[in-house]
């Protein structure tokens, strides 16, 4: 976008001279505080569920009570007659020919049509003047279901007489999948795994099960749709990618994209669970139908049905090694259950297969990953995205192999650790630092936490603080039967979107003088979901433009796409776009300076010029003018797109291809205490070492690593959505029954940050959000195995797995 040139005018007085340019405080590398912090601690920050509008109605979704059934009839008469109800909508009310949406495959009906494919699928919508009125009216809608057999696993999905979850598929994966109930299949074959197996002195294999995890972000799905005068709609919503939502919403509403204006409202966490649409289309439909603003807020029960989950997985792995511990080969088969709709399943398959070997050098591999269509809850993106399930299995295998070889498990890993220059099974060379062995060394070198911390010695001898024991305040043990274990794990995650995806971001940066001070405004469509992107954008602008005042414009669709806040990509890609746009703004300002003030000092023409501390400064540190003097009432305004290096698709037969942009590595050491009598686990410490390339904001980096670590801990010992294998119904959609770690379940998480720059990335940074979620789960499992001597091949570990009862 163009700057607004004005006639050059000579400033009053000559520029101030010879002031040593100083670095502007609050730039990258500093732990600056969040710009939204004060609003968030005072309760004034407007989350999507806090939106309010005069005359607003409340929307409610009626969801299917069965997993797989034909819909014989829907009777909405009684609901519509309820006082206070303004609209009741079903599939028949969808206004446009396009009735489905989806991230990659448009297989998800906006409202169920003729058939439901999973428990909790949206069937009808109600708008009313009170949320309770809407709920009660929805309960009066009569639906007759004709139940169908449910597909719940690989065997039932691929049985010869299996019902097809999606008949008449036309997506581009159908040509290469072995069965229409398989969404996508990706083999990766390199070398000759069978021949290499013959050279192995030791071969270990195992079957692993990874449970269905929920993102359990705290701020439930919610938003406000306001009809606008031009027949369009304004949507204020919590999401991870505004433009992706827009592309899916507009066609179903039958509106051109410019009539659907989206603004990001406060997001209470995401972790992948907001990549797919939830209430967006529904609220807009109700608003357009009633002509009134409509707010929708899911409660926790509905939230469990309102977003996709982490793919549960079954994994079979085989590794071989020579006597001295060198890996000879790896074979694996990974079956991910994608549930009723495709969501991100194809990309999850790509990740699971291409990262299946983990951060190890194995030349001969035979890998296959598939995702199923089933009648289980739809699964898609969640922090770690396909790499998590694989890491759980290959790390268990490493321990098994170490035991078989009678080697130290960390040494075995270090011996086989990949490094810069290693070839991945996809044939791609890792062309940036890969400090896998070093990260392991660091977590191992850390002193162990003291034993038996529950014992506090006092004058009379000793007393027990049960709060520090497994079981805690439930007072189930005083230390009898409590044993300690230590376990290690390391993981490999790609950063950014892979497989040839055009992964770009857009940033608009404006610089102007307000009250005599230069102020930069950064406008992107980046979804701030809690990760701290807004903090980092301000830091980048301060560093690049030398101004202290930076305003972050609210994210909306009036600026180009920023891509998704996922895949650890946002600081890399949108951060890169902000940097790129700032550089262009800087050049414009220097041009203006040369034009207006060039005659005052020869350095304008000859020196390398920088912006620092609100001034134009030579590389020798001489200040030529203040930015305020240069700009006066001119403003510079630039909007640019920025891309990382292109990637390419994996070959569908061999899996070969330069599919990834960047890698992220983290290692964990877990120390646990297990009450072997009751099967209760207390994690004592979960130390992490991670390479972050460059810590743009060290405080936020630690927060991200600790948060990711805790989600990995959760799935290790408590988190799982339970689906009844006979009916495919969800059994625990509540925070009473789906447990996430509390502060009592979460140990101290010391973080050791390594900064080995990736020369291809802005400032050398490396995406950080996901890697710690990979390795913390297998580290905890390894520690429990170490404590108990049990095999434990599934997550989460439950008390009965430990006690054997």
């Amino acid at each position, binding site marked *: 976008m163009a700057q607004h040139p004005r006639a050059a005018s000579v400033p009053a007085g000559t520029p101030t001279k010879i002031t040593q340019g100083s670095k502007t405080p609050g730039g990258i590398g500093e732990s600056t505080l969040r710009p939204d912090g004060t609003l968030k601690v005072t*309760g004034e920050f407007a989350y999507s569920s806090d939106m309010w509008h005069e005359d607003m109605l409340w929307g409610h979704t009626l969801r299917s009570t069965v997993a797989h059934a034909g819909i014989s009839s829907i009777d909405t008469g009684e609901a519509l007659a309820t006082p206070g109800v303004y609209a009741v909508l079903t599939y028949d009310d969808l206004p446009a020919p396009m009735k489905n949406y989806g991230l990659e495959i448009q297989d998800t009906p906006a409202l169920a049509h003729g058939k439901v494919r999973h428990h909790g699928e949206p069937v009808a919508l109600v708008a009313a003047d009170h949320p309770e009125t809407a709920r009660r009216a929805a309960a009066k809608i009569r639906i007759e279901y004709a139940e169908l057999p449910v597909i719940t696993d690989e065997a039932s999905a691929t049985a010869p007489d299996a019902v097809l979850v999606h008949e008449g598929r036309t997506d581009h994966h159908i040509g290469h999948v072995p069965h229409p109930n398989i969404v996508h299949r990706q083999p990766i074959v390199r070398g000759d795994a069978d021949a290499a197996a013959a050279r192995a002195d030791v071969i270990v294999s195992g079957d692993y099960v990874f449970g269905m995890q929920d993102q359990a972000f705290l701020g439930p799905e919610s938003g406000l749709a306001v009809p606008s005068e031009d027949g369009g709609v304004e949507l204020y919503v919590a999401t991870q990618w505004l433009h992706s939502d827009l592309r899916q919403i507009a066609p179903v509403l039958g509106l051109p994209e410019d009539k659907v204006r989206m603004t990001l409202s406060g997001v209470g966490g995401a972790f992948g669970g907001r990549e797919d649409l939830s209430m967006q289309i529904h609220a807009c439909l109700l608003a357009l139908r009633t002509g009134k603003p409509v707010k929708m807020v899911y409660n926790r029960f509905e939230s469990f049905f309102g977003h996709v989950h982490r793919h549960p997985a079954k994994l079979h792995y085989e590794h071989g090694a020579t006597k001295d511990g060198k890996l000879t080969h790896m074979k694996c088969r990974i079956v991910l259950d994608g549930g009723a709709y495709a969501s991100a399943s194809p990309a999850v398959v790509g990740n699971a297969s291409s990262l299946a070997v983990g951060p190890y050098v194995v030349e001969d591999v035979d890998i296959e990953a598939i995702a199923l269509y089933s009648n289980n809850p739809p699964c898609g993106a969640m922090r770690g995205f396909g790499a998590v399930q694989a890491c759980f299995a290959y790390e268990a295998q490493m321990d098994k192999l170490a035991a078989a070889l009678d080697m130290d498990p960390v040494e075995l890993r270090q011996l086989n650790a990949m490094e810069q220059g290693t070839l991945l099974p996809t044939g791609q060379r890792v062309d940036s630092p890969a400090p896998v062995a070093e990260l392991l060394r660091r977590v191992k070198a850390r002193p162990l936490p003291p034993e038996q911390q529950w014992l506090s010695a006092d004058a009379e001898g000793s007393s027990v603080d049960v709060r520090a024991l497994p079981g805690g305040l439930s007072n189930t043990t005083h230390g009898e039967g409590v044993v300690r274990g230590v376990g290690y794990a390391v993981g490999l995650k790609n950063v950014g979107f892979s497989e040839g995806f055009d992964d770009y971001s857009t940033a608009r940066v404006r610089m102007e003088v307000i009250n005599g001070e230069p102020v930069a405004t950064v406008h992107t469509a980046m979804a701030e979901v809690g990760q701290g992107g807004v903090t980092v954008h301000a830091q980048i602008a301060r560093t690049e433009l030398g101004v202290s005042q930076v305003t972050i414009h609210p994210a909306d669709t009036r600026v180009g796409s920023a891509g998704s806040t996922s895949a650890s990509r946002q600081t890399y890609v949108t951060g890169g776009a902000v940097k790129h746009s700032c550089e262009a703004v800087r050049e414009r300002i220097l041009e203006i300076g040369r034009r207006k003030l060039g005659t005052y000092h020869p350095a304008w023409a000859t020196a390398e010029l920088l912006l620092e501390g609100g001034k134009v400064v030579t590389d020798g540190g001489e200040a030529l003018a203040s930015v305020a003097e240069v700009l006066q009432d001119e403003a510079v305004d630039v909007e640019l797109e920025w891309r990382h290096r292109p990637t390419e698709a994996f070959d569908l037969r061999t899996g070969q291809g330069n599919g990834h942009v960047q890698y992220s590595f983290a290692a964990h050491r877990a120390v646990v205490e297990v009450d072997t009598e009751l099967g209760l686990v207390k994690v004592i410490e979960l130390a992490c070492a991670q390479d972050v390339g460059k810590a743009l904001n060290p405080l936020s980096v630690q927060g991200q690593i600790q948060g990711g670590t805790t989600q990995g801990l959760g799935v290790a010992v408590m988190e799982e959505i339970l689906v009844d294998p006979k009916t495919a119904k969800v059994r625990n959609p509540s925070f009473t029954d789906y447990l996430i770690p509390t502060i009592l379940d979460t140990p101290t998480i010391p973080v050791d940050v390594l900064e080995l720059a990736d020369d291809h990335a802005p400032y050398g940074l490396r995406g950080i959000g996901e890697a710690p979620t990979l390795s913390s789960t297998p580290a905890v499992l390894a520690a429990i195995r170490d404590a108990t001597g049990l095999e434990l091949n599934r997550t989460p570990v439950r008390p009965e797995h430990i006690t054997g009862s």
Partner: protein
Amino acid sequence: MRVNFTVNGRPQEADDVWEGESLLYVLRERMGLPGSKNACEQGECGSCTVRLDGVPVCSCLVAAGQAEGREVVTVEGLADYARHREDAHPGTGCAAGTCGTSLDAAQRWQARPTDARSAEAAALSPIQQAFIDAGAVQCGFCTPGLLVAADELLEACPSPSDQDIREALSGNLCRCTGYEKILDAVRLAAARQEETVR
């Protein structure tokens, strides 16, 4: 029905409250105080924690009618509340044998009107500032409930051990931070509080 109660020091009345409405709903949707969050409406996450006559409660589990005639403090009133506590009993705590805020003190307290906010009134309470400084806020959805709970802890026990903090905050879920920075924040607020007492 009509509910009369005091919210953040100011008498309020809510009309046409349906019997099933929670205190949380009335605060958020009728009083225009969305600071208390609804993350589960099941009493499991603590995001909706407010003080009812000084006692931290999950406002999603309190029927609005139960608040009749009582004192409610939400995150929006936390800074004023903390300031008032300092004025009323500077530097008291468990050790002095005067734990918590008495009902009497809670009822005598009046917030400054928010429309004429002085710089002082806009200032943050120590625990709010500590949450920002320690990096304990990410998405921030859990923050209001945690602040109310942590503030009450520090009132009752000015120098809590880590186990005390964990125990006091065990009813508040946070999905983003991993809790380490939340512990840091409470320790920081306690340390700063001690500084000012000395």
